[in-house]
C-alpha cells in the first residue's frame, strides 16, 4: 500500500515539480520546501492531486509541513 502511494507520489513530483527531470534523486525524508521543490502554488497542486488521485479529503488543518513536506510524510498521511 505504502509502496504504491510512494511510487505515485514520486511520479507526480517528478512530473510537476521537476518538470520531468527524473535524474534528480529525492530521498524520502528530503524537505520539499527547503529543497525549493515546492512553493505555495505547489502545495495547492499537491493537495488537489491527493484529493483527486487518492480520493481523500484534505482538511485545512492538515495542510502543514508535518503532513506534506516530504515524500515519507505525504505517504504516511495518505495511508492513515
Amino acid at each position, binding site marked *: 500500500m505504502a509502496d504504491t502511494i510512494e511510487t505515485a507520489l514520486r511520479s507526480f513530483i517528478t512530473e510537476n515539480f521537476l518538470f520531468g527531470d527524473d535524474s534528480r534523486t529525492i530521498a524520502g525524508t528530503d524537505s520539499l520546501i527547503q529543497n525549493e521543490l515546492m512553493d505555495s502554488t*505547489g502545495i495547492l497542486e499537491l493537495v*488537489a492531486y491527493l484529493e483527486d488521485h487518492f480520493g481523500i479529503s484534505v482538511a*485545512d488543518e492538515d495542510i502543514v*509541513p*508535518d503532513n506534506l513536506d516530504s515524500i515519507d510524510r505525504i505517504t504516511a*498521511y495518505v495511508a492513515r
Partner: protein
Amino acid sequence: MAEPAFSQHEGGAVPAPPEAGVVPFSATHLPAVAGMFAQTFRGGAGRSAETLRRTIAQLFLERDAAYADIPSLVHVNADGRVDGFLGVHVAAFECAGQPVRVAFCGSLMAASPDTDPFVGAKLLRRFLAGPQDISASESANAVSQGLWTRLRGAVLPDYSLEWIRVLRPAGFGIALAGHARPALRHMAPLARPFDALAGRIGAFHAPQPGPCTDEEGDSATIGALLERFSADAVLRPEWSAVDLCRRLADARHKARYGPMQARIVRRGKAAIGLFVYHAHPDGIAHVLDIAAAPGQLPAVIDHLFAHAHARGLVGLRGRTRPDLLEALLTRRCHFSHRAATVVTSRDPALMDRIRSGRLVINGLAGENWMPLIGHDFA
C-alpha cells in the same frame, strides 16, 4: 467560530493552541496585521501608524452584518503569532440581473512566504471555500495568480493589463525614475524644454479635448452615472447599495498617487462619461475609473488625455478592460502586465454567465479604490 486546528505528529493528531490555523480576523489581530502590512507592502514604514490600523479596521472589521459569514482571515502559527492575512471585501453585485455576493480578496500576505509557503496556500484555500457566490481579485501578483489558477480561478487577461499613455516623454522618464528615487522629482522643470520640443513632433502633440467639457462630479451624480453606464454589463455592482460618498472619500487617500480628480464629461448638456484619477503636479495620472455612455468612450478618453495634458501631467496609466482596450489601441498607448484580475465561482452556470459579457469589477467597483493601495500611512 474558528474550527480547531491540529498539527500532525508521529503519535497522531495533537491539538494546537486554541486559535492556531486559519481563523476569522478580529480586533485582537489588528496590531499584528498592521505591522505585517507595513512590512510587506511599505518596507516597514508606518508599521505602528494609527491611521493604518484605523483603515484596516474600517475596511475589514467594521462591515455590513450581512457579510459576517465571509470574514477576512488571519493565519495564527503554533506559537500563537499572526503570520498571515487575507483581507476580504464583500459587495452586493448583479449577475445577469440576479443578486450575487462578490468577495474580493486583497492584501494576501504571509510573514515568511519563502520558508513557510503553507500560510498563503491555506488562507486562499479557505477563502475560496467560503459561501460567496463569486470570488475575485483585481490585484493578484504573480504568486497569488498562480494560487488562484491552481484553485480553478480564471485569469481575465483583458482586465489584467496596465495601459500607459505618455504625454511628455522627458517628464515621464523623470516621473518614473522618481518612483524609485523621490529626490529625482525635483528635476521635473529640467524636462520642460525637451517636452516643449517633443510637443512639436506628431506623437507628442497636445491631445485635443474635442467638443466636450468637464466639471467636478459629486458622489450622487457619479453613482447615478455609473449605474446608467454599466446597464449592459453582465456583472456589475448593485450601485444603489454602494455608499459611494464614503467610497470616494476613501479613494482620496492615495498620497503616493496624488490628489484625486473626479470629473463628469459632458457633450453639450448631456453627461456622456466620467473619469477619476490621482496625480501629483508634473506627475503621472493613475486612472482609477473611466465610464461612458454607449458609443461615447473614445470621446471621454480623448477628453481625459486633454484634461491631464492641460494640468501639466506627463502621462497616464490605468487598468484595461475589453472596451477600453479597443479604444486605447488607436491612441498611442503602451501595455504591460502588473497585477491580474481573477475571478471564480463554484457555480459553473455563473462562470458561464461571467464569461459571456462585460464585467464591471475594477476601479470603483472593485478594490483599487482602497487606501491600502497607493497611500502612505504615517
